[in-house]
């Protein structure tokens, strides 16, 4: 039942050029090509270095607080009346989301490369906070680029980053959200390439970022796989995770890709609904193109201009998606579905009230779809949902919708 094809195709991507089938690659200006080559070679060396791995494992255990629990949401499952639902509790990590798994790893790379300055882009602010946190701990100078619109939506996280000693730079170009923050981070990197490490927060960007961010996030799926075997005695029937850039999803999915019995669902932000064009669901409603260093599915208009996106959650408000997801969609291994703003909001309230766990609005998209899926399954089956972050940061957004101001 748990057939694991060891030399499966999934272990063979990306190839040496950073391609996942037709996707990925290195679409950047020449100035950055040598920095990417250096990063790739350092990463290849350190990922095989037992001392580096030990350092990373210690940080994950004692600083991040791993392993994160796999929690069975019994009351919620009973209410839905279908499959059992387990939550992978990435919200319990230090800083409150899965993002820190990756920033700890990349900051260690920065340290080994002798870079004294780190930069990051952020949408919801979780990756920015996770970067500012590890920069504070390692004594690195930290600059976080954040769209002006997101600075407004995520004021709490902006202040957290400032408390941690980071400089938050509001980005006023374009749509003033995550994609524009990424443009500005790239511009900063090209200007300070000698002393700066760019800590990308998702499995997008030029090679080797989609590879190394995946590797750092795979701790989620490795733990979940072992916990399923231990707590449920078998592998799950389905995995569900939200997909913006797709780092929490790839982290959960990847260690299970060879397990043919495990179905996978990546949940994109449906915003006001796919039909309204007010969404952030490139895998469901986009077409392939090139943005931010890689070829992938994009939300673009008839002239190849990148479109403005909409999602209730800043962390999913991105017009592209990691190239590995684009490939997994095309080969049919993962199902990419959507949950709209209102469904995510309902799931936020439900989990808070029924389980006493307040999920991030990003993760609420995964929860909304999981509830739909579980209802169609039997009580003999079980689902693992990646609860990628906690919802404290979203309280203002939720309150605003409820007409409450503080």
């Amino acid at each position: 039942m748990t057939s694991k094809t060891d030399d499966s195709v999934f272990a063979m991507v990306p190839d040496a050029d950073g391609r996942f089938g037709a996707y990925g690659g290195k679409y950047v200006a020449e100035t950055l090509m040598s920095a990417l080559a250096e990063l790739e070679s350092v990463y290849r060396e350190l990922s095989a270095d037992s001392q580096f791995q030990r350092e990373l494992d210690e940080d994950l255990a004692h600083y991040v607080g791993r392993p994160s629990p796999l929690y069975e949401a019994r009351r919620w499952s009973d209410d839905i009346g279908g499959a059992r639902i387990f939550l992978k509790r990435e919200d319990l990590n230090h800083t409150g989301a899965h993002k820190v798994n990756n920033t700890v790893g990349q900051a260690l790379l920065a340290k080994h490369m002798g870079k004294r300055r780190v930069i990051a882009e952020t949408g919801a602010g979780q990756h920015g906070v996770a970067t500012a946190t590890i920069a504070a701990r390692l004594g690195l100078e930290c600059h976080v680029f954040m769209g002006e619109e997101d600075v407004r939506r995520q004021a709490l996280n902006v202040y957290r980053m400032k408390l941690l000693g980071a400089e938050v730079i509001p980005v006023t170009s374009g749509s003033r959200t995550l994609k524009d923050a990424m443009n500005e981070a790239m511009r900063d990197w090209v200007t300070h390439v000698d002393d700066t490490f760019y800590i990308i927060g998702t499995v997008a960007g030029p090679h080797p970022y989609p590879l190394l961010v995946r590797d750092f996030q795979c701790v989620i799926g490795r733990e979940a796989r072992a916990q399923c075997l231990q707590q449920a005695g078998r592998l799950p029937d389905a995995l569900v995770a939200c997909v913006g850039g797709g780092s929490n999803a790839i982290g959960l999915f990847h260690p299970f890709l060879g397990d043919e019995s495990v179905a996978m669902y990546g949940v994109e932000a449906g915003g006001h609904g796919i039909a309204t064009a007010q969404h952030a669901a490139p895998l469901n409603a986009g077409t392939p193109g090139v943005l931010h260093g890689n070829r992938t599915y994009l939300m673009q208009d008839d002239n190849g201009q990148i479109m403005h996106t909409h999602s209730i959650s800043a962390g999913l408000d991105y017009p592209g998606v990691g190239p590995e997801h684009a490939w997994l969609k095309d080969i049919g291994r993962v199902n990419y579905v959507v949950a709209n703003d209102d469904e995510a909001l309902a799931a936020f309230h439900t989990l808070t009230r029924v389980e006493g766990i307040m999920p991030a609005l990003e993760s609420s998209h995964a929860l909304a779809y999981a509830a739909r899926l579980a209802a169609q399954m039997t009580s003999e089956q079980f689902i693992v949902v990646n609860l990628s972050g906690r919802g404290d940061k979203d309280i203002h957004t939720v309150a605003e919708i409820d007409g409450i101001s503080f």
Partner: protein
Amino acid sequence: MSQQGRKALLTYVVAGDPHPALTVPLLHELVASGADIIELGVPFSDPMSEGPVIQLGHERALAHDVSLTRVLEMVREFRRDDSDTPLLLMGYANPVEHMGHAAFADAASAAGVDALLTVDVPPEEVAGLNAELRRVGMDNIFLVAPTTPEQRIERIVAEASGFIYYVSLKGVTGAGHLDTQDVARHVGIIREHCTLPVAVGFGIKDADSARRVAAEADGVVVGSALVDAIVGAYGERGDGGAARHAAAELVGGIRRGIDQPAS
């Protein structure tokens, strides 16, 4: 480029900025003022290598919905009165990808485009596009940067034609820390690896910086300073005549600067 010792002047404007109706007259004005090669920016929603001045140029053009197709129409119109001045499109991968390599090559060459420079398509990613450009006889211009290792220059040269575009500094367009000695050293290294002419861009803003860089290269590119001068003169009133005049002044001054014998 660089005929009879004369150094080439390349002028960059964003197609459709500040207004689509001004672009073709502006291009003729640039040529009349001493530009040897027209570099026409294709507006893109996410111009990652541009500094603030040219970013805003892209945004102004996109406010008028200037698509790649519209840019090619402008080139066709320019060609009615100027069939000689070399014209290259400079932009980002996605609009070209979206049109399709073959369709782009056919449409661009029919419109009278001589060359393409896509900032975010390095030699590693260019195979499909280059095959189509070669088919229609268009040049593909590549960047060499201060961070490009010497052994990598060979790889770039293998894909390049027309000329090599040396990026004079680590940074985005319009940055202000040009180091002429460093430029001279890098241009020297590039020349050891290829016979193509070398043009230098990024950070050249006036006659003096142009003259200093031209002494070391076959051509110089002026972009941000020109875009800034044009939009400044165009102003809130939308004065196209003033914009053309400002462009002519700046380009004329730079032309005289680079034609001066090096002191």
